Each structure stands twice: as structure tokens, then as C-alpha cells.
């Protein structure tokens, strides 16, 4: 299982490009704010179309401008954890968690609600509305929602940035367990050196 990514995209005056290959484990895209790290994740997820390039994950081609291939977002099976959580405000935590699970093919599901709830310790939150959650709680639910959609890999966009120190430590532990216990390949965006040093097996500098 590996990321093979070579993409280029012009956004305004800036040209965002990335060219790297990485194996299993957690790969950090590391660089200053505004360097285009999130745009690279969006290109991998399919939310942003590269001007040219190629994206393959675990040997499966998601995008290839030369061959005219662009897999739609919903078919890529990316577990995307956004910086701002993005829980659906009109659905309770339980329905947020099951949103992707309900849409995944049964064969693609590798975790059920009970597993996710136990893994993340969010059983007491299931009937709550997202707006009533703290930052750390919301981020755990967001991670659970991504895991339950049956992803083949995770994309994490600064999942710790909106949290205080205690919550950061807690979510960092969750991410380590995702990496080690679930052996999911993770593409992780951060501008925090200590975070990257602790979590990443491989570091890809962006805009440095």
C-alpha cells in the first residue's frame, strides 16, 4: 500500500506541486501555512482537479491527466478528516458516524459502529448534536465518521490545530493507534515540527 503522487495545479498566482512516493504508515506533508498542503490533500481526495499529473494509491489509479482518468470523489474511498471537523449540523453524532457507513458497499466496510465507538471512546456522545461538542469530541467523531466509511487510506488536514494542549495529546494518541493498530496509510498535513517528528514515518516538505 503506497501513495504515488505527482501533481501540479495553478491557483491564482501560485503553482502548487507535489511529487513523492511513500509507503505504509504516516506520511507528513510538512511546510508553512499557505504552501498548498491542503490543496494537495484535496487533489488526492478528488475535491480539486490537478492541471496535470498522476495519483495512484496502492497501485490503483485515481487520477491521470495523460490517460484522461479522474475517479469521482465518492469512488475514491478516502477517509478525509478536515481541519474544521465539518460534522453535519442537522444530524446527531450517531447519524454523522453512519453517514459514510450507510453508503459504503458492505464488502468495503471494515469497521462497525460499535468498534469505532469503542476505539474512539465516544459512546456517550451518540445522541448529541454536533454544536454541543467540544473541539476534541468533534474531532474524534470526525475521525470515526471517516473510519466508518470504509476508507482505504486516510487524509488528515491539521486535525490538532483547533485543540488545546490536553486535547492535542489525546487525539495524537488516537492517530498513533490508527497508524499502528489499524495499519492504515495516512497522508497528514501539518506545520508543527514536533507533531510531525512524533507521528510521521516519512516527511514530504512542501514549499520549503
Amino acid at each position, binding site marked *: 500500500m503506497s501513495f504515488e503522487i505527482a501533481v501540479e495545479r495553478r491557483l491564482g498566482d501560485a503553482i502548487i506541486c507535489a511529487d513523492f512516493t511513500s509507503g505504509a504508515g504516516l506520511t507528513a506533508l510538512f511546510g508553512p501555512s499557505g504552501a498548498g498542503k491542503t490543496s494537495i490533500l484535496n487533489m488526492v*481526495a*478528488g*475535491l480539486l482537479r490537478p492541471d496535470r499529473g498522476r495519483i495512484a494509491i496502492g497501485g490503483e489509479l485515481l487520477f491521470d491527466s495523460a490517460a484522461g482518468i479522474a475517479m*469521482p*470523489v*465518492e469512488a*475514491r*474511498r*478516502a*477517509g*478525509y478528516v*478536515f481541519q*474544521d471537523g*465539518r460534522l*453535519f*449540523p*442537522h444530524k446527531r453524532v450517531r447519524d454523522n458516524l453512519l*453517514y*459514510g457507513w450507510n*453508503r*459504503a458497499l458492505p464488502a468495503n466496510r471494515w469497521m462497525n459502529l460499535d468498534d469505532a465507538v469503542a476505539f474512539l471512546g465516544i459512546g456517550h456522545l451518540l445522541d448529541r*448534536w454536533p*454544536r454541543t461538542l467540544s473541539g476534541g469530541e468533534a474531532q474524534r467523531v470526525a475521525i470515526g*465518521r*471517516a473510519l466508518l*466509511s*470504509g476508507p482505504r487510506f486516510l*487524509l488528515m488536514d491539521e486535525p490538532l490545530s483547533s485543540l488545546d494542549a490536553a486535547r492535542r495529546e489525546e487525539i495524537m494518541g488516537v492517530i498513533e493507534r490508527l497508524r499502528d493498530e489499524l495499519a492504515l496509510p495516512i497522508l497528514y498535513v501539518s506545520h508543527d515540527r514536533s507533531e510531525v517528528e512524533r507521528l510521521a514515518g516519512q516527511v514530504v516538505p512542501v514549499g520549503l
Partner: protein
Amino acid sequence: MFAISGEEWEVISLSLKVSGVAIGLTLPIAFALAWILARVRFPGKVLLDALVHLPLVLPPVVTGWLLLLAFGNNGPAGRWLAEWFGITFMFRWTGAALAAAVMALPLMVRAMRISIEAVDRRLEDAARTLGASPTRTFFSITLPLAIPGLLAGAVLGFARSIGEFGATITFVSNIPGETRTLPLAIYGALQVPGSEAVVTRLSIIAVALSLLALVASELLARRAGHGRGGHVI
């Protein structure tokens, strides 16, 4: 004083029928226009926006006259609808409904557009990454988040169409039982000496209906899903 006569009941029920039909039929059109204005980029968007809003600023008499030209018995749209569907508008309640619909459209589109624009597109992106197709995303995320605003827009349009006067009287005249809606009945009563009681009764009913609709619209907008709030008025 407050005994409402059979004739007045007829006016009220006609008003409700005209407005109900007008808003019911305009709802999908208003939604489509609001969606296009909120989400689609194309040349000439400013023009479409202006056209939709025209009835809001045009003298209603002019709107009524334009409807007469287009949908009258000799108008191009009127002749076509009569030939193919047997729908005629002249001096009929259908004409009053058409006038009410055209006059209510700008308000409905405005309210709906605001509620569509208020939906965070990043939530739609999140839904896509979770495996939802664009259609599913629309029905499970966009529509439920926008729906209080859509309903508020519809109620607002209903209130506006209850009060419609100028375009209606110009387009389809003041025919009892067909086009004599609340405002037209009030206007008619004002022309007759000694009918202050009728005017007062009908006016109170008009105020009550409008107030009810505005409150309903505001409550719906405020409910805009679990405290996210927003006004349409």
C-alpha cells in the same frame, strides 16, 4: 359587526385558493431560479437576476398590462396555453393566480437564494468524500440544510400574493367569485358609501393573514436547523 357574510367568506376562500395555487406552482420555479442564481456561474446572470426582480420594482399596473399582452386571449403565451392545454386567464381566477405568482416570485427567489447560499459547501465536500454522489449529497445535506429557508420563502411569497392588487385588477379586472380577492373586495367596498363595516372586517382579516404568514416565515427561518439562525425578512 364581526358577522362575516357569505359573500365575504367567498372572498376569503377565493384569496386563499388563488394564493395557494400561485405559490404551489411557483415553488419549483422559484427554487430552480434561486439555485441557478446561487450556484451557477454564466454570462448574463445579472440580467436574469434583474428580470426576476423586475416585478418587485415595476409599477404593478405595468406588470398587469404586460401579463395582459402576453397571456391575454390574443397574447402569444395566452393563445398557446389555450390551444394546447385549454387554460385561459382572462377574467378568471387562474389569471389572478398568475398575477399573484409573478408578483410573489422575486420575494420567494430572494429568500430561497439566501438559504441556499448559507449552506456551507465544505459540508457537501465532506459528504462526497464519505461516498455520497452529487445527487445524494443534494438530498441528504444541501436540501435539509436549506429547507427552513425555502419554506420561509414560500410563506413570504404567500403573504405577498394575498395582498396582490395592482397587477391583478389590471390583468383580470374585479369579478366577484373569480378575481375579487381580499384587496380587490376592500377596494370595491370603499367605492360604496356606508360599507365601512365591510372594509374594516376584510382589512382585519387581511392584517391577521399577513401577520400570521410573516410570523410563520420568521419562525421557520429561525428554526433553520438547530440554532444556526438567519432572517429572511
